[in-house]
């Protein structure tokens, strides 16, 4: 398989996953804000922190109000990570491998891009936004399902799943990093209700709430949420699960030794680090290490295969 083709498949999946995660994050934040009292100032800035960093945003907008942030994250062509840009990139990558991926996949990726372009207004406005963003999520999950159902599970498919899992793991760490920082761990009384709500929203950002409740049962608390999102091997959006996937996928590919080694190292670091017990500053540093580790895996994949 040509390196370029492998790379296109990898990035197509990465961008699709990014668009899906961004859509979910915006939807969850909209709901969260409706539940919080106006005195709890959370707002939309954390979403910027999770997805892209503030610098790029404040170059273009004065304040992080809902309209600006949503516009920046959904349709702004100047934001490389906006949903529209992610879908554009996913489509361009799919287009170059159009003759190699199943034609239904090309049609779906193309259709997702076209409908997002058409629905730009709906994606921005409050009233229809939820439905429109859910549409992006659904479309991407359809693509994932179609791939699983009709594409030969060959090297190309392995690269698609590699891209998806690395992006997913990356997003999980970003959400935890930012969200846990804005949550004060030792609050009593009224505020703790809201803390509870916020941890719930963290889980929901990863579609993890229901699965968490089934698995943990206890009332929502920080160590358990962290443990679930970082270490639960069977939850598909937990960091450990994505790393397991990456490792298994790499093992299907030729010349995988170094990339597998980097992945195993990070797995060990993650499990041994007991992140659920860490205080905020330590957790922040730990997450930094995790992100560096994932960058190393991606670099190794890039160096070996692309």
């Amino acid at each position, binding site marked *: *398989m*040509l*390196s*370029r083709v*492998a790379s296109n498949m990898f990035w197509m999946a990465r961008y699709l996953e990014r668009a899906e995660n961004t859509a979910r994050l915006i939807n969850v934040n909209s709901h969260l804000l409706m539940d919080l009292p106006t005195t709890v100032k959370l707002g939309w800035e954390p979403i910027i922190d999770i997805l892209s960093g503030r610098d790029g945003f404040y170059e273009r907008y004065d304040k992080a109000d809902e309209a600006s942030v949503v516009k920046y994250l959904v349709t702004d062509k100047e934001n490389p990570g906006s949903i529209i840009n992610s879908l554009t990139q996913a489509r361009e990558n799919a*287009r*170059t491998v*159009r*003759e190699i991926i199943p*034609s239904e996949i090309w049609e779906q990726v193309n259709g997702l891009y076209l409908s997002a372009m058409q629905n730009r207004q709906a994606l921005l406005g409050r009233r229809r936004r939820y439905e429109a963003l859910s549409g992006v999520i659904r479309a991407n999950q359809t693509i994932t399902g179609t791939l699983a159902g009709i594409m030969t599970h060959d*090297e190309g498919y392995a690269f698609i799943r590699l891209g998806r899992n690395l992006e997913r793991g990356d997003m999980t760490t970003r959400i935890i990093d930012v969200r846990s920082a804005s949550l004060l761990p030792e609050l009593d009384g009224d505020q703790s209700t809201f803390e509870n709500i916020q941890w719930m929203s963290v889980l929901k950002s990863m579609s993890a709430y229901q699965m968490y409740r089934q698995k943990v049962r206890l009332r929502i608390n920080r160590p358990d949420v962290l443990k679930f999102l970082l270490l639960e091997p069977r939850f598909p959006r937990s960091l450990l699960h994505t790393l397991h996937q990456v490792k298994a996928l790499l093992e299907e*590919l*030729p*010349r995988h030794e170094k990339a597998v080694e980097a992945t195993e190292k990070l797995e060990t670091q993650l499990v041994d680090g007991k992140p659920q017990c860490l205080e905020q500053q330590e957790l922040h540093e730990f997450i930094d290490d995790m992100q560096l580790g994932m960058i190393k895996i991606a670099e190794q994949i890039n160096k*070996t*295969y*692309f």
Partner: protein
Amino acid sequence: MTIRWGSYKTTNLYDELLRAAGKPRAAAEIICGYLRSLTDNDLEEFKVAAESAIHVMGISFRVYHEDEGSIDRDWPFDIIPRIIDKQEWLQIEKGLKQRVKALNMFIDDLYNEQKIVKDGVFPEELLKKSKNFLPECKGVHPPLGIWAHICGSDLVRDSDGTVYVLEDNLRVPSGVSYMLENRKVMKRVFPEMFEQYSILPVDDYPSHLYDMLSQLSPRDIEHPEIVVLTPGIYNSAYFEHAYLAQQMGAELVEGSDLFVDDDNVVYMRTIEGPARVDVIYRRIDDHFLDPEVFNPDSMLGVPGLMRAWKAGKVALANAPGSGVADDKVVYAFVPEIIRYYLNEEPSIPNVPTYKCINKEDRDYVIENIHKMVVKPANESGGYGMLIGPHASKAECEKFKRLIRRDPRNYVAQPMLMLSTAPTLVETKAEPRHLDLRPFILSGKDIKVTTGGLTRVALRKGSIVVNSSQGGGSKDTWIVDMEA
């Protein structure tokens, strides 16, 4: 209203299917009768069926749009086929083989001994002025002595029925995938016609192409690595590049997928590491092939590719420099070229071409400029041309000056009246002008496609057949009337 051949206007032009109103040519009788039997509804249905087949099969071409970037458009297609009797076709085929054989000998001679120049048949000053002569190719002996492995020659028919070669495309001719796809569409739309006619098949082209390319491999191995080199998805012919690669089971690569190592071998980057490439069917123009030698800014090519080719470590089809033989001035010399190398008379005539470099020709052209089509040597796509009968007085005067200033750079031809064929407009058949591009493969032997790509100017009265400018295509049937 169904199709009524009695009211079909054939005017004074040659029509491919009808001798005169209401009188189909022998090879077209069955199809004309069949079309007449169809109702408007039938015709509409067939048209829709063809369109949806084209859409579903993804037969598209790319057009550039000012604000939208570029978009894929479905291939415009007319369901009425163009029909040529096999006996006539065999003559054309023979002539094409002769022509391409001579042209390849000409190219090989120009880059090596230049006997034709020394013998005074081809003027040295024309060679010196040629923009497409690549000095970098001097002294190279490509495998089998062949430079233009894939040639697309455009044929037109004048009002008296004579078939002429209008031009040869020896660089990266395109269109063959549409020829193949047109046939598939027709089989879906008119299956019954394929029972009534003995229509010669076209779909062996990809395997002939593969065989020819593998004959060029520098390594004597059973499965040489053959790749199709494309400029990428934004190229207007990308569909074809991908299509041919897929049909041949070859990798479709871009310049960045390949690299040339110190050993002058070309490798492609794969997830398993570098893999050696033997033959490159390149669909990139000469000047973008190798930034080490040609355009240093080229992002499309492969640095070192010329080194590898000259060292005989990789075969390029077509060979760089082949374009020297397809400019408009060389065209005028093709009859002489055929006589010189093959000692034969050309079987397909050139359009009579006046070479302004000769005083006699020049005087005639200047005197009759309002009747002539004047073409500069090194432009393509109709740029810098004068169409005398449609030009203003001022334009004619301007061209007279241009010709006097640089006579070598101009040739002129009488205005041809391109033949027509019935083309479906709404649910009626109207005559539209067309040409024909057969593809000729040269390897150990020479193979010509059965027919070729018929391009038709869909606009009334237009003679522009390019798909980007309102042109469409038809399936071309070579029918065996004796079968």
